C-alpha cells in the first residue's frame, strides 16, 4: 500500500467516521485495526447518517495530532498526494493546504460534459462573487493545522459540499495562510456521486448565504 510506504517516518493516525454504512466498512476497519493496531486506526462510528459537518467535528474530537488531513475514503482522493500536502505545509508554514483539481498537474476523471459545465459555471460564479483566493472551493481533500480547523469548523453551518466552500471562504476571510497543491480526482469507483437540480439550488443558496455572512 503506497500510503504506508511513503509516510513510514511520519507519525500518523487514521480516524474513520462511519455513519452506519451498509457495505461492511466497519468490519474491514476492525480487521485493519488488528493488522496495524488500534492506536493507528481509530473507528469512530455513529449510529445513523448525521451529515458532513458534524462528522468532521466528531472526528476532530478524537484527533490527537497537530495537523489534520480530511479526505474522502472512497478512493476519489488518492493517498499518494499526502506527502505533497505535508511537503507544502513544511515549506510554506501554511495554516491550510488545500487540494485543487483545476490547475496544471491536477485533474478530474469520470465526469460527463454536463457535470464539467456545471462545475465550471459554479466556479466562475463563486469566484466573481466571493473572491475566495483559492482555485478549487468545493474540493474536500485538505490539510489543516488542528487549531485552525477547530476555529473555522465551529463557525460553519452549511451542509454537503457548500460546507467545503464555507470552510475555505471563512478561513480566507479570517486571514489564515492557505496554500494549494494539485490533486487528481477519479470520480467514485465505489458508490455513485450525484449532482441534480436540488444540489444546484443548494449551491446557489450557499453562495448567497456566504455573500451575506462572510
Amino acid at each position, binding site marked *: 500500500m503506497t500510503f504506508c510506504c511513503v509516510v513510514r517516518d511520519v507519525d500518523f493516525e487514521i480516524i474513520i467516521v462511519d455513519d452506519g454504512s451498509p457495505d461492511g466498512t466497519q468490519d474491514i476497519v476492525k480487521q485493519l485495526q*488488528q*493488522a496495524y493496531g488500534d492506536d493507528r486506526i481509530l473507528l469512530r462510528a455513529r449510529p445513523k447518517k448525521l451529515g458532513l459537518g458534524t462528522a468532521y467535528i466528531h472526528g476532530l474530537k478524537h484527533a490527537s495530532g497537530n495537523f489534520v488531513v480530511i479526505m474522502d475514503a472512497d478512493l476519489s482522493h488518492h493517498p499518494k498526494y499526502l506527502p505533497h500536502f505535508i511537503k507544502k505545509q513544511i515549506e510554506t508554514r501554511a495554516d491550510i493546504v488545500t487540494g485543487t483539481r483545476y490547475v496544471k498537474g491536477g485533474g*478530474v*476523471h469520470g465526469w460527463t460534459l454536463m457535470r464539467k459545465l456545471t462545475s*465550471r459555471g459554479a466556479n*466562475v460564479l463563486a469566484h466573481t462573487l466571493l*473572491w475566495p483566493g483559492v482555485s478549487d472551493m468545493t474540493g474536500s481533500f485538505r490539510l489543516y493545522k488542528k487549531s485552525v480547523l477547530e476555529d473555522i469548523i465551529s463557525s460553519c453551518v452549511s451542509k454537503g459540499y457548500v460546507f467545503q466552500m464555507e470552510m475555505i471562504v471563512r478561513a480566507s476571510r479570517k486571514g489564515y495562510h492557505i496554500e494549494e497543491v494539485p490533486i487528481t480526482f*477519479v470520480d467514485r469507483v465505489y458508490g455513485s456521486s450525484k449532482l441534480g437540480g436540488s444540489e444546484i439550488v443548494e449551491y446557489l443558496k450557499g453562495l448567497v448565504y456566504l*455573500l451575506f455572512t462572510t
Partner: protein
Amino acid sequence: MKHIAKIMTFLVAITAVWISLLQTAMIPQSHTWLLPLYLIVSLGCYGLLMVGVGLMQFPTCPQEAVLLQQDVIEAKQFLKHNGVDVGSD
C-alpha cells in the same frame, strides 16, 4: 466588512461615476444612458467566456483511473497478505 458590503460599495462607486458622466455630459447623453446595458452585457460575456475557456482547458486525468485500479489491486494483495479481507469485488 461583509462581502456583500464590498460588492455594494463597488456598485455604488460605479453608479457615482455614471451619474457624474450624465451630469458633466463629457460624452453624448444618449450614449451614457446605454452604459449600464453595456456593462451587464460585458459581464455576461465575461462569464460565458470564463466558462467556455474553463471547459476547453478542463484538466482531465484518464491515466489516473488506470493507475488507481493498479493501486487497488496492489493494496488488496498487500492487505490479504496482512490478514485483512476486503472482499473481491
